[in-house]
């Protein structure tokens, strides 16, 4: 069944249909939240809250755009709010992440893992607005128009933020330019 | 004698209180939109304006007035908008969280159905000063 059909059913009160929507999109939703927040509990909280809010606002969803994009907008808003509210001492779980990645990519050498860590750090160091567009573009593969819809800004803002984000990333990752085969 | 008067009094009050129970608060924000180069947006209507700016070429948005009133089944609400325009809102139906209104201005009659506490209906177009008026009508 297509997403928009599940949405129609959910609107009519079919909770099982909404559960199916949650199952379909929870992976990516959690992943985006995690990449923005770098903390498992927060990511789970925010992702669940986003789905709940989507449920309450189903009446407003016109179905002309994709459910996914609409959901991401709610999710990104919540995650950005969380980021702004956050104090710097919130524990990040990069140590756990490293173990996970070692376990799941046994073929990877240490340099690769370090590279990946540096990239993660560089993205993490971006301010929330820039981080969001980079994640939506490079991680989710959304087009400029879709990103504009998710963050509720004009396409020009998306381009400008990407431009600045990439400039900063390039500065922090510059050392990898040389010797990168 | 007294208990009788009291009972009659209560019976008289009952329809009045029912009418009040059915009274729906209405709010009208009167906004002037224009193309002045300053690009000033009144912060009180910031969120609304952000959505309008996608589609309208106006650069300036000013909140001129806010009118509040109540409509109930037998009594419509009338008010006068900036520049002497009459606006009248009549209650057609209340249905749970939705309310149907009949809105009349000198230029248009319209029947709309709104969610109480939800998004406004916008009526726009009449010229005002250097720009146009936009009325955002919502029901609580």
């Amino acid at each position, binding site marked *: 069944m297509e997403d928009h059909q599940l949405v129609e059913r959910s609107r009519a009160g079919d*909770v099982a249909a909404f559960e199916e929507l949650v199952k379909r999109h*929870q992976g*990516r939703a959690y992943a985006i939240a995690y990449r923005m927040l770098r903390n498992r509990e927060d990511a*789970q909280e925010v992702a669940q*809250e986003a789905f*709940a*809010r989507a*449920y*309450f606002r189903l*009446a*407003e*969803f*016109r179905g*002309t755009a994709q459910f996914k994009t*609409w959901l991401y907008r709610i999710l990104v808003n919540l995650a950005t*709010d969380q980021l702004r509210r956050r104090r710097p001492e919130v524990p990040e779980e990069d140590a756990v992440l490293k173990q*996970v990645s070692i376990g799941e990519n046994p073929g990877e050498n240490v340099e690769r893992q370090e*590279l*990946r860590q540096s*990239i*993660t750090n560089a*993205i993490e160091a971006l301010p929330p607005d820039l981080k969001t567009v980079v*994640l939506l573009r*490079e*991680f989710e593969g959304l087009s*400029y128009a879709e990103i504009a*819809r998710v963050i*509720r*800004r*004009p396409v*020009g803002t998306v*381009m400008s933020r*990407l*431009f600045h984000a990439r400039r900063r*990333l*390039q500065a922090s990752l510059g050392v*990898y330019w040389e010797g*990168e085969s | 004698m007294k208990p009788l008067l009291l009972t009659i009094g209560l019976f008289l009050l009952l329809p009045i209180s029912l009418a009040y129970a059915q009274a729906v608060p209405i709010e009208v924000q009167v906004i002037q939109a224009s193309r002045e180069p300053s690009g000033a947006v009144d912060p009180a209507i*910031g969120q609304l304006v952000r959505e*309008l700016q*996608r*589609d*309208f*070429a106006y650069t300036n948005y000013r909140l001129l007035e806010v009118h509040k009133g109540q409509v109930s089944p037998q009594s419509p609400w009338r008010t006068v908008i900036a520049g002497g325009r009459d606006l009248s809102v009549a209650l057609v139906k209340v249905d749970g969280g939705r309310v*149907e209104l009949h809105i009349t201005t*000198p*230029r*248009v009659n*319209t*029947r*709309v*159905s*709104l*969610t109480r506490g*939800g*998004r*406004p209906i916008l*009526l726009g*177009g009449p*010229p005002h000063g250097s720009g146009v008026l936009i009325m955002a009508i919502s029901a609580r």
Partner: protein
Amino acid sequence: MPDAVSRQAWECIGKGKANVIRHRRYQHSLNAYVDGELGPSERQRLEAHLVGCGECRIQLERLKELQGLLRQGLKNPIAEVAPVLWPGVRARIEDGRPAGQLTAWIRQIWEATWERPRLSLAGATVISVLLLTTVYLLWETPVGPPPGKTVALKPGPAQVVVEAVEPEPDFGAMVLTTSDEDEGLQVIWVVARGEM
């Protein structure tokens, strides 16, 4: 890479002031180019520029390398460890509508005072042309509501539904939905027949 070279690649300084401005505009297009978001004529213009501009070619390569790096770095299969969210979602739904709406509103108003979205001149022109064209088309083709008759519109599950519109004899009315496709505002726009 030495700072001077990378700075130059970013600023793409050519000969004379006109060149600097033109090159700065190309810089922004390079991003769109790498993302496949340039229209065909803009792409041609950029590719023509690239033939003659070494700095921009270097920058393009840098962007492509960055993109490659980011894609690699982001390929971490975090999705596999995503928890099952449904029980938490259901619990929240059963709890009822969240009370945080008011603070969200306040925050949005606050943000709006500091962010002034700038409609570019081109964008504004396009929008006003579209609006004028819409009005023009409505006058030319008999789609607008004829005076004295009501137009009944099909209601949907949306928050705001315009059930009927009846303009006064010398006016016409358009019912628009703003382009926020999921939650567009309903607008009834009234125009005097002489005014446009």
